[in-house]
């Protein structure tokens, strides 16, 4: 029983990490006032590039770097259109997702069915040998710790430093930030690139750690769930971490129930994360006080400086 519980907890952590990585990046993007709906596309390209780079070099670390680079490159395309060309952010984000999914399918065609390179778990001697707690706290792969470190870092920077104040100022009132002499477009470019890197990393996590292989559409809506998580967490980093782990738990419980075979159709259990996402959005969005307090006031609005 203990072993079973342990393995369930371990899979919950690996299922939650990609959601957390993708959504913490998008949280920073949205805090700066930009809505990038292309997370799903950047994740898909990150997954395929990470997989391919790891396969050709044999090194999962190079795979991770490739995944990040791919995410950043795609986000720059989004940034150029929405920030420099002042295009509609919703439509451009959708375009990024459509292009990303198409590109990933095309690039990954020759990778289908190939065995992947798996990112190994850290094995801190002595500590990871502690029964039960050891493997959970000290036996994860590197990116699990990285994801939590990013959350801590984002939380610190956003609310305890001047940089964070500038990012939030740009997101809450871009005209005031501009009048104070801050480069609204510059801050937003950096935020968008950070979000792209995180989304690419999340994709790389899927194809290098979660399931080390490439399957088309392997992101299966996780980028969209990440977007919903940001709303669910009302733009607060630690609440986001809790949300991501909650969603990971629900996904894995669905799978576990499927394995036990309790007579519920497997498709119904697979649709659980999507239905829960909708319910979470309903619960949070219905609470006006909570959302209004933290929603960046300029979210999704294009910035054109007054001349």
């Amino acid at each position: 029983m203990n072993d079973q519980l342990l393995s369930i907890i371990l899979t919950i952590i690996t299922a939650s990490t990609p959601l957390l990585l993708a959504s913490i990046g998008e949280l920073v993007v949205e805090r700066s006032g930009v809505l990038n709906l292309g997370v799903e596309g950047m994740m898909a390209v990150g997954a395929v590039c990470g997989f391919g780079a790891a396969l050709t070099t044999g090194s999962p670390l190079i795979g991770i770097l490739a995944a990040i680079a791919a995410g950043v490159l795609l986000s720059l395309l989004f940034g150029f259109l929405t920030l420099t060309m002042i295009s509609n952010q919703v439509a451009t984000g959708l375009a990024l997702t459509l292009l990303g999914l198409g590109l990933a399918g095309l690039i990954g065609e020759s990778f289908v069915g190939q065995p992947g390179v798996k990112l190994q778990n850290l094995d801190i001697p002595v500590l990871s040998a502690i029964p039960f707690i050891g493997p959970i706290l000290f036996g994860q792969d590197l990116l699990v710790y990285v994801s939590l470190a990013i959350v801590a870092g984002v939380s610190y920077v956003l609310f305890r430093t001047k940089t964070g104040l500038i990012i939030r100022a740009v997101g809450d009132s871009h005209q005031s930030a501009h009048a104070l002499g801050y480069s609204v477009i510059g801050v937003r470019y950096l935020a968008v690139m950070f979000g792209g890197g995180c989304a690419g990393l999340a994709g790389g996590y899927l194809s290098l750690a979660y399931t080390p292989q490439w399957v088309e559409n392997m992101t299966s809506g996780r980028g969209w769930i990440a977007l919903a998580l940001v709303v669910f967490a009302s733009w607060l980093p630690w609440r986001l971490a809790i949300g991501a782990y909650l969603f990971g738990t629900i996904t894995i419980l669905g799978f576990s129930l499927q394995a036990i075979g309790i007579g519920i159709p497997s498709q119904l259990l697979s649709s659980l994360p999507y239905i829960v996402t909708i319910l979470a959005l309903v619960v949070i969005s219905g609470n006006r006080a909570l959302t209004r307090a933290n929603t960046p006031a300029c979210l999704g609005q294009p910035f054109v400086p007054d001349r």
Partner: protein
Amino acid sequence: MRLVLEKRAERSTRMALLSPLIAIVLTLVTGGIIFALRGLDPLAALYVYFIEPLTSSWSIEQLIVKATPLALIGAALGVSYLANVWNIGAEGQLTAGAIFGSIIPVYFPEMQTPLTLVLMLALGIIGGMAFGAIPAFLKNRFSANEILTSLMLVYVAQLILDWLVRGPWRDPQGYNFPKTISFTNWQTLPSFQVLPPSIGPLYVNLGAILAVLAAISLAFLMGRTLKGFELRVQGVAPRAGRFAGFSREKTVWFCFLLSGGLAGLAGICEVMSTVGQLQPGISPGYGFTAIIVAFLGRLNPIGALVAAFALAISYLGGESAQVALGISDKTARVFQGILLFYILACDSLILYRFKLIGLSAAPVESRA
């Protein structure tokens, strides 16, 4: 010297018309470069991809078959987007329509009258509307973001379809394949000859005719009625819309029921013609490609009709390029994505224009 965008005094009508054409040309140039990089003769490859689908009456029939769902959905999505209602779950509403309409042949396989046809199409529309009603209700009642809810429902619809055709609705004589019984006679769409054998012959099915009728009615709605004016005002100037007393809730309902219904119709038409039964994978992402159709068609119903053909060419060209050139048919989706990027970039030039600013001429902008 640097290049900046400057707001135009008024929107440029010339750019509004030119933008999709420029976008298509840029996509073709990009495509040519991609082909050249892969060691193919770019002109020959582009010919196979984009011109060959127009050269025989058979391929034109195929083109119409693929353009039909795109036009049906794209026209309605354009209306929604114009009113600032972001339904991006048309793929799910398409699936729901296909499921609802298939109730008749699955449960009443013996029913074979013209009424069968009408009932199936009506149920398809109702299914799509019912599925579109969910995000509309959640938006109005709980202000839940309709982009995310409508998209999540796509996965739910596809999983329900998967469960049905593998479980309760599976054809008992189907050798365990995940599909329902094949639809026959009145359970399929009738075809009409629109061009005589001397020129064609060219056959189109009922779905294509419904798509043209839908686009014309929507164009009338948008251009000639108060409802159309109301929708456009809410898109361009939401505050003005509120002062005019236009109900935002009603607009959300209207847009989702309209686009959901037409997506459902597109879904049932697909299973009643091309597919011929209910099975997983009834659509190669028509509901998503229709988003591109809506933008390429200037969010105008008639424009969507034209744009649907452009996107249908990319589907068909993708198939023939796979056979003739050995290029993956996945290239088509990349082209579609690139096209949407170019359209959005060019659309900026409707409201803005490029301006070169010399360093000396720039006003004092230093951080004093």
